[in-house]
């Protein structure tokens, strides 16, 4: 009650009906974890959160409750990682990376079948006999894999050992699903089934050894593990390695630097204006020599509005697609993500549901420049997300190109605006639908366009691309809008996860974030 944003209890996953609050946004009272077992059978539910107090007072009750909370937290965090005899999966740490099986075991087609291409990080690979699909970054192997996890993780070598990437191994050891062992003391002791003196790796050891290995940063790992916990499948994207520079191929510097292609109203618009011109020959093309509307006969408001739309805008559909390596870290896609519902095969991953770039907002305190963002967007056919991370906290933003001029407010009078609209066209429309989620909730705020930017819900800045400064805050708190009659690239930024509404004013007030880069 003290805090509307924090106090909403976990709502059913009906994302579109109300702005929910993500429980993970706040420090949880671990006492409620202890209640879990009471309903563990029926639902793997998450406990309701407790009431928090506004401020400390000298009452004993408050002190007791705090002590209980801390005790519960202590207990929950002390829970050991156990491996029962039946479920135990043993793995070994290979500090030197992939080593081929000891006894060359040639014809094993199974490995072939399991191999796949997504791990083919273009790092200069060391010679990999037989199992070329295993990443050079893999550093943990499972001699006898069993259990559900290896369907979506790891790569098998020719003797059916599964090799895990550092993040995979770390994730599995952290959730208590893998018993990783240090390499045996003497290299000679390699007898199968005899792990005489192999010491189990601690969680701490796993972090110390795997983190930093093969471009794995804590930020990337946090994003990886955060999504894994929710059931997503993740594979490394080709842009994983930071040391791959933008390729200087046939594209000359000058043309490459021009990040945004400015378009007129697109093909449809051109056809439309052609049509208008035929329909209304009296109108003048130049606004400099006469009134914008002209003196034609107007049978419909639409005609008038169409003529008022004089601002050229950027259309992502017609933008050229770029190679991923044109992007510069950190604004580069590092993960391909698959929803839990997406059928995913390790050997042939489908097109990803999401592409994720991971940005540490500690190191990158400014908004991406238009060049960075433009390259990122153009290197992806769909919508990437940016996971911003700041000291253990991860926040996701959806970044989408938006075709500013495509959202024709005037064609849309009356009636609730939202995903149900029939007037759809291909890709950008689809993105639009996703970014409109919020608008169902706040119907009165739904229609956001030039006409509405002056409404009090919005705070407007125009970001000059020459001087991109941090707006007092990491990504997430920026509400930028445009109202300039310049050719402008509009990028819509909105938090995808409606429940992450804590992050930033924009989401809090149900507004969408526009970042406009002034390219003049």
């Amino acid at each position: 009650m003290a805090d509307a944003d924090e106090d909403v209890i976990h709502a059913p996953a009906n994302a579109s009906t109300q702005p929910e609050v993500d429980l993970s946004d706040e420090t949880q009272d671990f006492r409620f974890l202890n209640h879990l077992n009471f309903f563990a059978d029926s639902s793997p539910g998450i406990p309701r959160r407790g009431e928090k107090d506004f401020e400390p007072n000298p009452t004993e009750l408050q002190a007791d409750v705090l002590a209980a909370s801390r005790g519960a937290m202590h207990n929950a965090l002390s829970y050991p990682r156990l491996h029962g005899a039946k479920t135990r999966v043993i793995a070994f740490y290979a500090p030197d990376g992939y080593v081929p099986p000891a006894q060359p075991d040639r014809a094993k087609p199974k490995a072939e079948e399991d191999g796949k291409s997504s791990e083919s990080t273009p790092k200069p690979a060391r010679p990999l006999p037989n199992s070329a699909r295993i990443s050079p970054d893999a550093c943990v192997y499972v001699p006898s894999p069993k259990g559900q996890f290896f369907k979506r993780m790891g790569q098998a070598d020719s003797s059916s050992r599964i090799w895990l990437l550092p993040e995979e191994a770390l994730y599995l050891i952290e959730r208590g699903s893998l018993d990783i062992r240090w390499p045996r003391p003497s290299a000679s002791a390699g007898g199968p089934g005899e792990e005489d003196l192999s010491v189990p790796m601690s969680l701490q050891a796993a972090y110390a050894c795997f983190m930093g290995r093969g471009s794995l940063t804590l930020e990337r790992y946090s994003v990886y593990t955060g999504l894994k916990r929710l059931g997503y499948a993740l594979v490394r994207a080709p842009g994983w390695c930071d040391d791959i520079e933008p390729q200087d191929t046939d594209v000359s510097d000058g043309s490459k630097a021009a990040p945004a292609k400015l378009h007129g109203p697109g093909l449809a618009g051109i056809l439309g204006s052609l049509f208008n011109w035929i329909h209304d020959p009296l109108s003048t093309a130049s606004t400099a020599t006469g009134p914008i509307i002209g003196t034609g006969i107007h049978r419909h408001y639409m005609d008038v509005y169409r003529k008022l739309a004089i601002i050229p805008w950027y259309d992502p559909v017609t933008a050229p697609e770029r190679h991923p390596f044109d992007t510069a870290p950190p604004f580069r896609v590092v993960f391909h993500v698959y929803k839990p519902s997406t059928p995913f095969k390790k050997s042939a991953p489908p097109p990803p549901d999401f592409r994720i770039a991971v940005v540490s907002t500690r190191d990158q305190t400014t908004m991406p420049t238009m060049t960075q963002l433009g390259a990122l967007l153009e290197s992806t056919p769909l919508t990437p997300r940016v996971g911003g991370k700041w000291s253990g906290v991860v926040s996701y933003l959806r970044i989408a190109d938006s075709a500013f001029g495509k959202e024709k407010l005037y064609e849309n009078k009356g009636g609730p605006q939202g995903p149900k609209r029939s007037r759809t066209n291909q890709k950008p429309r689809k993105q639009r639908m996703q970014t409109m989620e919020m608008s169902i909730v706040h119907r009165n705020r739904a229609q956001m366009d030039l006409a509405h930017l002056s409404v009090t819900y919005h705070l407007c800045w125009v970001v000059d691309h020459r001087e991109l400064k941090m707006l007092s805050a990491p990504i997430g708190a920026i509400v930028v809008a445009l109202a300039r009659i310049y050719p402008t690239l509009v990028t819509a930024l909105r938090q995808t996860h409606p429940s992450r509404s804590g992050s930033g004013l924009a989401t809090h007030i149900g507004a969408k974030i526009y970042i406009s880069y002034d390219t003049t």
Partner: protein
Amino acid sequence: MANTQEATKRPNASAITEHIAKKGYDSPHLATSAQVQHNLEHQHLWTSIIGDTPANHHENQSLYSPATPPHRVYTHPDEQLYMLENGIREDDLKPERMFVVPTTQGQPWSLRHMAAVFDRLPEFKQKAEEHDRSVDATSMQPGAESLDPEKAEKLAQYYDKKEKTRVTKEWGTQRCLLAMVDKGMGGDGTVAYYVVHEGEVKPRQN
């Protein structure tokens, strides 16, 4: 479309624009200050506005427009609790002068500025009190005759306590009202008001 002449005719300037134009302020911060005063007086019905004086300026910046709001702008949560416990309503109390700092978008502003505002606040407070006494000694008093003795007693206690909290800061520290005028793109007359406290003052919960 027939009469384009008429359509392009310039609309009349707003009252405040005319006012500012007529005064012909020689520096933009004076115009900002005038706009805020105008807004306080006519939109928010503040009274006893002490106009801008050269003494109120600091580094080319209007520091304060002391004025009295019709209702209290700010009550510290603990003060509110005290009032609740003692049955004191806001209407029982005399209005509190608030010091308003006019600012506008794009104006240089920093912690140094903010600190300067608070460093000079006591001085201006004193001046404003002198001014109040000189103008009308009784106008600031609520209708004391209509009070029953019990209430009067409570109120006296309240004022006592209030005086003490000035030192203990139990009921908040020095504060002023930051008025922010949007002049971007010609401005739309919006003035946003924020209460600024010196130091860490816990937020109100309502």
